[in-house]
């Protein structure tokens, strides 16, 4: 699959946007500015970016507790994301959801999720609606290696397969569910192997190679859109930070992280784009600067926005 230059540059920008956003959050959390839990996506940017770059605006995604990258890649507005994470009324969820529940239904983002394995069945529902209405919308369901062991996930894979639903299950295998390494939580080496149980394609890709993710998910999206049913794409990657900010990571070796930092998906892609003459050093710098400015504006917006009033607590329980 050839990827046009514009798309390549866009993917570089998206990965950069995610990295900068998450790096800021890391600072804010350390400074005590953000309440609750924050799960950062640093190191895994190529997965959300490559996968969402294959989608149309009307397509859907379901996300996870580690959702900021998915949201940004699907077009989420940094201002409203940042405001939500700060608990402000101007945030995506009016301050009611926070980091783990950001959603933008208009952009097809059916929510981050605090329940591991919560997204698969919902992705099926959206895909069912697409099939029911006869439009050709596709759903990407992001889920972790840990989530792959939940009953809900396996049930969702089966239903999607039995009903040939237009879902692409994008597994983010970052090697751990909190402290538990995949070698202890499952006996298979590749989560993609489980696709065989549902008679759907199962593909393993280098999750730190954005073009590889784009190609594999793109292929699966095409199948889904043309009625050939679901696929399971396993993206091997690594989270650089602790499970949540504040996690000291006693369960893994520093050298493991160092190895993965060498495989940083962003400079790797940047070098490739430079070598192919697609992105100059100056252009890359200009993109980084523009994103930094966009992020500063988002932070200013979040900081200046009001907190919700206590009286707002009763709003939005029912439609």
């Amino acid at each position, binding site marked *: 699959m050839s990827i046009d230059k514009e798309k390549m540059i866009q993917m570089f920008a998206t990965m950069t946007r995610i990295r900068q956003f998450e790096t800021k959050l890391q600072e804010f959390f350390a400074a005590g500015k953000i*309440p609750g839990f924050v799960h950062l996506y640093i190191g895994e940017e190529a997965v959300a970016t490559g996968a969402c770059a294959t989608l149309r605006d009307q397509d859907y995604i379901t996300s996870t507790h580690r959702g900021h990258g998915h949201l940004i890649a699907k077009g989420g507005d940094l201002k409203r994301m940042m405001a939500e994470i700060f608990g402000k009324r101007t945030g995506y969820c009016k301050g*009611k959801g926070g980091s783990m529940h950001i959603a933008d239904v208009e952009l097809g983002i059916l929510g981050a*999720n*605090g*329940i591991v394995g919560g997204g698969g069945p919902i992705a099926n529902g959206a895909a069912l609606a697409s099939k029911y209405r006869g439009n050709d919308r596709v759903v990407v369901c992001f889920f972790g290696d840990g989530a792959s062991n*939940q009953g809900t996930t396996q049930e969702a894979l089966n239903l999607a397969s039995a009903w040939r639903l237009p879902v692409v299950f994008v597994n983010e295998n970052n090697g751990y569910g909190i402290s538990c390494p995949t070698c202890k939580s499952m006996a298979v080496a590749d989560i993609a192997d489980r696709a065989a149980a549902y008679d759907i394609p199962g593909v393993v890709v280098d999750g730190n190679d954005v073009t590889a993710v784009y190609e594999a998910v793109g292929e699966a999206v095409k199948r889904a859109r043309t009625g050939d049913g679901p696929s399971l794409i396993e993206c091997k990657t690594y989270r650089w930070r602790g499970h949540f900010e504040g996690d000291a990571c006693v369960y893994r070796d520093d050298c493991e992280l160092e190895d993965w930092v060498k495989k940083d998906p962003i400079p790797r892609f940047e070098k490739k784009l430079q070598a192919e003459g697609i992105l100059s050093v100056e252009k890359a710098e200009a993109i980084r600067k523009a994103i930094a400015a966009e992020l500063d504006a988002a932070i200013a917006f979040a900081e200046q926005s009001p907190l919700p009033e206590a009286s707002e607590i009763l709003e939005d329980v029912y439609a």
Partner: protein
Amino acid sequence: MAMKTYLQALNDALRQEMERDPDVFILGEDVGQFGGCFGVTQGLFKQFGEARVKDTPITESAIIGAATGAAATGLRPVCEIMFVDFIGVCMDQLFNQAAKMRYMFGGKAKIPMVLRAPQGAGIGAAAQHSQSLEAWFLHMPGVKVAMPSTPEDAKGLLITAIRDDNPVIFLEHKMLYGIEGEVPDEAIAMPFGQAAIRREGRDVTIVATSKMAHTALEAAETLAADGISAEVIDPRTISPLDTQAIVDSVKKTHSLIVAHEAVKTGGVGAEIAAQVAEAAFDYLDAPIIRIGAPFTPVPFSVPLEQAFIPSAADIVKAARRLRG
């Protein structure tokens, strides 16, 4: 006796029971080397090894089911559900399997398992990590439900839970893990179904569970300055419930407030109010007042979350309405 945190007290109970009884083992997500998301199982993996402190995949149904099956065949599992909110994932294994097995089998099986889970709001963890769900379990014949509010109770009740031959849902409040109190060094089982009178009083009875027991004591202090003498009762276990202690208190004070952090609607307070109305209606001078969270999911933002959690001021206001 020694000063210990609620969290250390729980850890002590687990350690001592595991030392005493080789059939006791722990299973759950990140309970091993990691020591549990909040640290309750810290050090146990090192002492007892992988066979008795078992990290599971993220698969709550399989955890509860494994505990149920192991308990039915003679072991004494203590499983941890990382946040009580995740109980929804494994509800069938709990309420259709563990809770009913003995009865359905005509008394031919026993299920000596403990399900520990933290609940409660206060850390900005939002709607799927902050709930208080004890009412769900109260409505479940076959399980017992403990809600310790002090370090001493945390230890004593957990020991009883482990030794009990029935499934026990053991609900810890995550905001209490750090509180300190005197805790006996020995493993002393604290009986279920015996409420603690946290403060004696004449004018109004306040029944308050878990963290709300502390809030009620704070309110009682304010009320004392107003000349209102409040009696604070902490049921410690809601199933079995020490109705007698509550009724005895109401016969003395002639008024009742029930306070919990869970949403008020359909909460444990409704059950307690109904039981008191049945047993001691004639002794009441005024309608019973229930205090609980508003009928909403737990919101994220700090001012909203604070508005969600019932406060000492809410209790004081209610008591003044009754006795002002």
